[in-house]
């Protein structure tokens, strides 16, 4: 999950990094309330959206008084940046700075370890820095036993021409690494990491991506994730431990399966045949009748879905349970126009017999390829 900037600052502060202290407002009313007492001008207003390019989109403004705060705040609240409507604005006092640098720790998939990246020039995306100043970038792979050592940071400070900052930089980088480890981050980036006119290190912007596999270790992240999620079907599915993924706005086929791999292959094959998938649902484990019924209910809430392809194959799946779950959902009024069922596992005949009695059109398939052929037939008939 990608955290918002103010959430990153909150974590920085918790780990004693020099974060910006600021305020977050979630509506114009809250902004008006803040404007009546705010005294720290000039101030910076920043749209809180989980994407880059905020500055270019007009989502970052400097204001000098309450009137500007309200005017520019309102303009920012009206923005939609890369598809994300602005729901929160972060405000902190403007700071004169001397130098902008780049610092991040990210989990490197290929080398299977975190890598620290530092550059004495920052403020732009790391890709741009890499193009402009490849020689100034320092990449430091981190091993589990050694972590970040003082000599690492001394080298970084010397190489970057700021040897007098070695100690302060060490504290800051150690803190960032502790945050990275303890909060299960995939990326913890401070960009820019600034040196203020007074000569202090300051985190001016933060980007943190956390590991979804570890989300249940961190209730706050779980809360932030639900707060940010706007699709009620994703939340509904999550409460049943399903994974619901919207696929295409123009799709009309829903797919339920018990594995991500199978879902990906289903989407590929359906699109190969010139049809489109609206959404998919991964059941995870346990294809009980109750869970199947709930999965069908959630999938039929997507009004675009006209056909539901249920493809559950684990070898030990009970087909009668799957069929009963579907019948139950249809009886409760949760039914798309048509069903294609791939029942494979134990008690296959019983399952086919039960689902054969459905009041809506249903076709049976023997495997994935066959299932997609049946889907095409059903739409053509």
């Amino acid at each position, binding site marked *: 999950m990608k955290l918002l900037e103010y959430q990153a600052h909150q974590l920085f502060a918790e780990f004693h990094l020099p974060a910006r202290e600021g305020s977050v407002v979630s509506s114009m009313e809250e902004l008006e309330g803040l404007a009546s007492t705010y005294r720290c001008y000039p101030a910076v207003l920043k749209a809180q959206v989980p994407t880059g390019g905020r500055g270019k989109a007009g989502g970052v403004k400097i204001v000098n008084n309450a009137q500007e705060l309200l005017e520019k705040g309102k303009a920012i609240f009206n923005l939609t940046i890369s598809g994300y409507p602005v729901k929160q604005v972060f405000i902190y006092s403007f700071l004169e700075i001397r130098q902008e640098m780049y610092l991040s720790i990210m*989990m490197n*998939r*290929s080398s*299977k*370890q*975190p890598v620290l990246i530092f550059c004495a020039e920052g403020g732009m995306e790391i890709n741009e820095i890499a193009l402009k100043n490849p020689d100034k970038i320092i990449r430091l792979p981190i*091993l*589990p*036993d050694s972590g970040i050592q003082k000599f690492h940071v001394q080298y970084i400070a010397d190489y970057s021409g700021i040897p007098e900052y070695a100690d302060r930089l060490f504290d800051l980088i150690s803190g960032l690494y502790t945050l990275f*480890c303890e909060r*299960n981050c*995939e990326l913890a980036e401070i960009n820019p990491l600034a040196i203020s006119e007074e000569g202090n290190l300051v985190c001016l912007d933060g980007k943190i991506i956390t*590991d*979804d*596999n*570890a989300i*249940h*270790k961190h209730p706050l992240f779980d809360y932030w994730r639900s707060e940010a999620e706007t699709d009620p079907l994703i939340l509904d599915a999550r409460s049943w431990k399903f*994974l619901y*993924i*919207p*696929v*295409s706005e123009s799709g009309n086929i829903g797919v339920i*399966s*018990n*594995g*991500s*791999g*199978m*879902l*990906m*292959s289903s*989407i*590929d*094959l359906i*699109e*190969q045949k010139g049809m489109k*998938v609206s959404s998919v649902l*991964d059941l*995870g484990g346990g294809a009980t009748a109750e869970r199947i019924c709930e999965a069908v209910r959630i999938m039929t809430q997507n009004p675009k879905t006209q056909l539901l392809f249920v493809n559950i*194959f*684990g*070898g*030990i799946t009970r087909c009668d349970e799957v069929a009963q779950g579907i019948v139950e959902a249809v009886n409760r009024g949760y039914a798309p126009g048509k069903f294609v069922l791939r029942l*494979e*596992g134990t008690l296959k005949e019983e399952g086919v017999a039960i689902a054969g009695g459905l009041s809506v059109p249903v076709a049976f398939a023997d*495997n*994935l*390829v066959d299932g997609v052929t049946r889907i095409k037939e059903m739409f053509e008939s």
Partner: protein
Amino acid sequence: MSILIDQSTRLLVQGITGREGRFHTEQMLEYGTNIVAGVTPGKGGMNIQGIPVYNTVQEAMRRHEVNASILFVPPYHMYNGAQEAILTGVPLVITIAEGVPVFDMFRLYHLARSRNVRLIGPNSFGIISPGKSKAGFMAHRIFSPGKVALLSRSATNAYEAVFNMTNQGIGQSTVIGVGGDMIAGSSFVDLLPLLESDNETEVIVLIGEIGGNEEELAAEYIAQHITKPVIAFIAGKNAPPNRSMGHAGAIVSPNGEGGAANKEKALKAAGVHIAETTYQISELAQQLLNR
């Protein structure tokens, strides 16, 4: 032959007293796997299906000649369990849990390397050498002994491919779930050398998917070191971008990194046969076996 597990495997089951552990111990025994011991802290002295249970891996190792361990433990406990097995000296550790934090795998990966332990998974169905032994939760009735080895990042795609193969009379030497997470204990390149030197394996199948660069690295390795024919299937060509597809590792970044097209291109350039569907894997395997 076959690789990693066979009749000589003496398996330890960590988490043997849990619901999953019990059920799959029964299933593995039914398949003929030689399970010698189980471990659940605090449950030492119990018996599960006639298998003695110990509190620690060390105690189990002292009493039995364990040479592989499989962990049926929840994702947040996987780190401790796998660490115990690695530090106690089990040479092959198989982790299946889905939802293991990346940071835990980072630590385990490097620990296993430093101890020369082969780590498989997580988010994997395990390993099966059909007709000989299985260490995993796969439904074994769809597998059959033969000459095609299969490595897969996805369980369901592997099942689909194997089910088709078995129905077409094409058997398998060893089938391994490398797992769908960001960091795998062993990836394609780590396992390919074993398959190249396995005299029972004649054709190698890789089931990859979007995300990461394991397929690209495999292509590089295949071009230089693999003489046996290789078939690859890549899932997720039409997955919506920038959205994790359930497997933590299966995500294409907005700039197209980790996309299927790159992977297929690299594999093709390395002389790998590309299957468009899991079904087509069987057709290609049949042609290559007949050659």
